[in-house]
């Protein structure tokens, strides 16, 4: 039975349970709701919750775990001979799943009977040709061991689904029965329901922690696998990035880190002066109409998706720079050979970060107390002297925090560098040459048909973990600085 139907049935049961519970409570009170402990709908909600929560919880956990468990059982049952030279258990298992899926499809479309599909033998039937009928393309013909594994996979999945359906339905009915039996005019329905709702609220709030744990665990595990295959000294201290899918790669993060930091630096070189001066002008000089006009317009820049900036860098800005600095360009110098470069990605990213710097600094400058400005004016300072010598020093920690947050954004930015920065990992100082970044390499190592057991793919997780730690560190530092600063004036 498809999961969707199961969910619908459980919801239908809950709805029925709601009305039954409500009715029963009113009956026990002789039709007068004043004799009840709680309002009638609490009795109904009590039943509905006890139907829904356990059933859906089991359904969710079972669906999540069934695939994993069956996968493990089947893969441990595979003989060592089933894994061909140069392949891995993961690849064989994905083939097993495809065969199983194909057999299911064949049965579903009526091209093969159920018993036929169970007794299929690779010696007698061309399984590959049969599967091709339903659009499942296999690279090689199916080995008998794989076919057997696929059949046990199918039978386990089928049994698992039946057990799950029964279990979920039983739980739902048991919940309904129990809670309806509970329902009586003296039953403290409101307290029970409210406690249940509170638990659900706590569960929702814990999801944030679960996400972080998921991020860290998923990357830590794969990173550990990576360091099992590749030396960590080469990753952290090597000097070359040269992935080679035939093995023997040199995978060092340093050239990527250099590219990342260089491009972020160029981006900040654009964003910080422009953003900071914009913030100073908006908060100190601009009249109210100018401010209410310019500020939202600047903030539009932050709302534009990064893919737009990426395309702008790739199609418009890169070729524009090439026409200036490239061979036969306006300046007649040949400093640039490719439209993708550090400057292309950096400057475009800088445009994206302008509103980020400006609106954060704007808030911080506005938080500097007016009395400090008035004191400065009273001593005869001009407006710009006041800003330079009083307001900015007072706002400095906050501005540093804002710049750190912008840096963290720049380091984690993906689309602009994927499209504008190029793919050459090296230590180069010329901003008109292509470099590559951590995020770019994560994308290129993980897209395409990588094998999740090779260091060339797993390195992406190590890169991701480094990126996560790097940006997290910057954020924590920035928040710490900002918070410390706020304590001074409030």
């Amino acid at each position, binding site marked *: 039975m498809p999961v969707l139907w199961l969910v619908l049935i459980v919801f239908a049961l809950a709805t029925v349970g709601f009305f039954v519970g409500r009715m029963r409570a009113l009956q026990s009170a002789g039709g007068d709701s004043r004799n009840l402990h709680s309002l009638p709908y609490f009795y109904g909600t009590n039943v509905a919750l006890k139907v829904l929560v356990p059933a859906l919880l089991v359904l969710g956990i079972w669906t999540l775990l069934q*695939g*994993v468990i069956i*996968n493990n059982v089947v893969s441990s049952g595979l003989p060592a001979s089933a894994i061909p030279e140069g392949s891995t258990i993961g690849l064989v298992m994905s083939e097993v799943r495809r065969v199983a899926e194909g057999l299911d499809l064949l049965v579903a479309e009526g091209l093969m009977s159920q018993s036929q599909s169970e007794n299929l033998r690779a010696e007698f039937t061309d399984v590959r040709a049969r599967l091709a009928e339903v659009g499942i393309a296999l690279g090689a013909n199916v080995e008998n061991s794989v076919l057997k594994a696929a059949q046990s996979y199918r039978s386990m999945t089928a049994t698992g689904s039946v057990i799950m359906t029964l279990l979920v339905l039983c739980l739902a009915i048991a919940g309904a029965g129990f809670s309806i039996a509970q329902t009586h005019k003296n039953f403290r329905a409101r307290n029970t329901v*409210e406690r249940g709702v509170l638990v*659900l*609220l706590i*569960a*929702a*709030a814990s*999801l*944030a*922690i679960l*996400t*972080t744990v998921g*991020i860290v665990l*998923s*990357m830590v595990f794969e990173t550990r696998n990576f360091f099992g295959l590749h030396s960590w000294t080469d990753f952290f201290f090597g000097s070359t990035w040269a992935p080679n899918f035939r093995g023997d790669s040199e995978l060092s993060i340093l050239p990527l880190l250099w590219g990342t930091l260089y491009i972020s630096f160029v981006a900040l070189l654009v964003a910080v002066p422009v*953003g*900071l*001066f*914009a913030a*100073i*002008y*908006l908060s100190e*000089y*601009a009249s109210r109409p100018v401010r209410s006009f310019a500020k939202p*317009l*600047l903030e539009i*820049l932050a*709302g534009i*998706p990064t*893919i*737009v900036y990426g*395309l*702008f860098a790739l199609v*418009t800005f890169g070729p524009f720079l090439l026409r200036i600095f490239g061979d036969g360009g306006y300046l007649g110098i040949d400093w640039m050979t490719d439209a993708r470069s550090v400057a292309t990605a950096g400057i475009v990213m800088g*445009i994206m970060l*302008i509103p980020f710097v*400006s609106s954060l600094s704007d808030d911080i400058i506005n938080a500097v107390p007016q009395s400090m400005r008035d004191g400065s004016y009273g001593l005869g300072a*001009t*407006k710009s*002297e006041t800003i*330079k010598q009083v307001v900015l020093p007072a706002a400095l920690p906050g501005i540093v925090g804002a710049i750190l947050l912008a840096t*963290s954004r720049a380091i*984690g930015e*993906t*689309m602009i560098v*994927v*499209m504008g920065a190029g793919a050459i990992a090296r230590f180069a100082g010329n901003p008109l040459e292509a470099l590559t970044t951590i*995020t770019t390499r*994560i*994308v290129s190592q*993980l897209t*395409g048909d990588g094998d999740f057991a090779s260091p060339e793919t797993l390195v992406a*997780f190590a890169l*991701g973990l480094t*990126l*996560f730690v790097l*940006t997290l560190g910057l954020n924590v530092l920035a*928040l710490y600085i900002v918070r410390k600063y706020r304590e001074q004036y409030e």
Partner: protein
Amino acid sequence: MTDASMPENAVKTSIHTLDARTKKRNAAEARFKAYGIAAIAAGLMMLVVLVTTIVGNGFGAFQQTFITLDVELVEKKLDKKGNRDIADIKKVSTFGYAPLLKTAFETKVEELGIETDLKSKSMSALLSKSAPAQMRDFVLEDVSRIGQTVEFTFLANSRIDGYLKGRVTRESIANDKNVSVEQLDFVDQMVEAGVIEKRFNIDFIIGADASDQRPEAAGIGVAMAGSFFMMLVVLCLALPIGVAASIYLEEFAPKNWLTDVIEVNISNLAAVPSIVFGILGLAVFINYIHLPQSAPLVGGLVLTLMTLPTIIISTRASLKAVPPSIRDAALGLGASKMQSVFHHVLPLAAPGILTGTIIGLAQALGETAPLLLIGMIGFIASNPPDSLASGLLDPNSAMPAQIYEWAKRADPAFYERAWGGIIILLVFLVTMNTVAVILRRRFERRW
């Protein structure tokens, strides 16, 4: 006071004339102000440049060049046995239809009296490569059409389309093997005769992506459906979970270390690079749970995790804005804490929550990086999903991923598609943000 008390070398100053130092200070003041104006101007100029680039480059995608031809569906070619048996007619591949196009061009040229040295083969090269397939589909739909002469409107080849839009010129095709100057001359004559014309292209908005060879047929409609299903998942999960989490943190959570951990966690999650969420989705949803790759469901789950912090932060702000007197009044009338929150605080905070949710959705709609990792690029979904389940589980793309895919392809004709896709994406984002602003203006209460 006498003059004698003044030092002999004292500079006489007056408040009516500016001395050098004051002038310098005033100049510094003016300079500083000018820097500020320059910064604002630079920022706004970037915005203008971006917008003009987008509109200038993408507008063309909404127009397409079409060629109208009368094609005789010759029975001899399409149904050799003449018995209208659909199985036999299906055996005629698109190659069998190509000669009909050549004949159609020849007739058209004769009819219009155009003089050209062009061979009919290079004439039919003006058409999109999808033209024979279009005829074949038309015939297979109703076999009794064989033998008739039917007026078809074919897509023109992307080079011809580019020529009419000014992207391809006689100079730029010097090294292009796909199109010749003679063909362009012929196109000019055909345009004059009204056979070739540029029209509004609805297929770009509702159609599916096409292969590398046929930029003229590519559309963003199916990717839009993919985005729609992802947003559906985000809305169904992120809104209830986000609101529940905020209610707990804002109204019920005791001040202890666990609450602190959750709060710090949420503010940090909001700043985690989006690609990290992509890695999480790949590792957990695809490699561990084995959810189907490229499915909008997985994309939606990843984007849910990414938008949750945004929604939680804005929901908490709007819950905080509801004054405590409301809660106190409810409690005073005998409501439980839970009732006061759900019956009074939540409805009052609803506009703020809605605004935050819309902004979170807009952010998720434009996000690309995590989608690359869970495989929402690199294939062509040809049919729009026909049900909820297929919409959620069948491989699909999403608008930003589709734009990226186009930007990667070699043919510059796809760049026009990418910019056009961006226009559509931005129309959605602007609409969503405008709705959010209107909601805020309309329902915002000041206590």
